[in-house]
């Protein structure tokens, strides 16, 4: 499935996702067909993924998120952009993210 991502779009976690910080680890459980599968469908994100996920809150566009993370981690926005777009695409594919608005 091809997903077109616009850096100006704002995304937020789907209502069909439960995300919890558990002992410093971000645990994500998608609810598929009404069931949260704790046996086969638990996801975790590494530090980079987590930093991006926490900003995917329906307030900032992907472009803004890239800027914020680049600032937080003192990195070049071009380096961060690939990760932001990559993770967004991955999460959209898995139905964990929805588009909240487009700017």
């Amino acid at each position, binding site marked *: 499935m091809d997903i077109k991502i616009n850096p100006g779009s704002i995304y937020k976690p789907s209502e069909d996702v439960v995300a919890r910080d*558990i002992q410093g680890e971000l645990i994500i459980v998608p609810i598929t067909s009404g*069931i949260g599968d704790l046996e086969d469908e638990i996801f*975790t994100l590494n530090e*980079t993924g987590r930093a991006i996920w926490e900003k995917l809150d329906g307030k900032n566009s992907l472009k803004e998120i890239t800027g914020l993370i680049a600032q*937080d981690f*003192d990195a070049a926005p071009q380096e961060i952009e690939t990760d932001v777009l990559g*993770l967004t695409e991955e999460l959209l594919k*898995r139905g964990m993210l929805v588009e909240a608005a487009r700017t």
Partner: protein
Amino acid sequence: MKQPELDSEFSIIREQGFSLSNKALVQIIQEVLSRGRSVRLEVKGWSMFPCIRGKDILTVSPLDGHASYIGLPVAFTNPSSSNLVIHRVIGQRQDAFIIKGDCVSGADGVIRIKNILGVVTKVERNNRLVRFGWGKERWVITFFNKTNLFFITSRIGGRLPIFIRKFIKKLFFK
């Protein structure tokens, strides 16, 4: 101030058979069930043997206002240890259930509704749905639970409760 370091690439990892702590498991189950959805999880332990066994996969759903939950397995948090437990309702009051495992000698006691997470609605074993335990046979199972018959027979012979289960099944599934 030193900047935090960032790995160059994100990773999203699908964790199969991920071992969550008991507290974490309870938090996630509560969150999912509070949205009116169900959870699917693996059983650890044998306190519901022979009806529910270790490694069975259970689907737990929110309480849906049944008139009676007697005879049904429910997931709850033990009020003293906060541990997640799945045992059978053997008595019901307006605001609490009396709960006991099928293959243990002592009851969990009176568990208030606020400690009940949900009711078991499906059991899968070796990728097959277990239909036993939701029909009229649940009253016989509850009787065996209350009278400790599964517990006693499991002490006499490890597989004896399985033969009893088969016998009950023969009575109700022709």
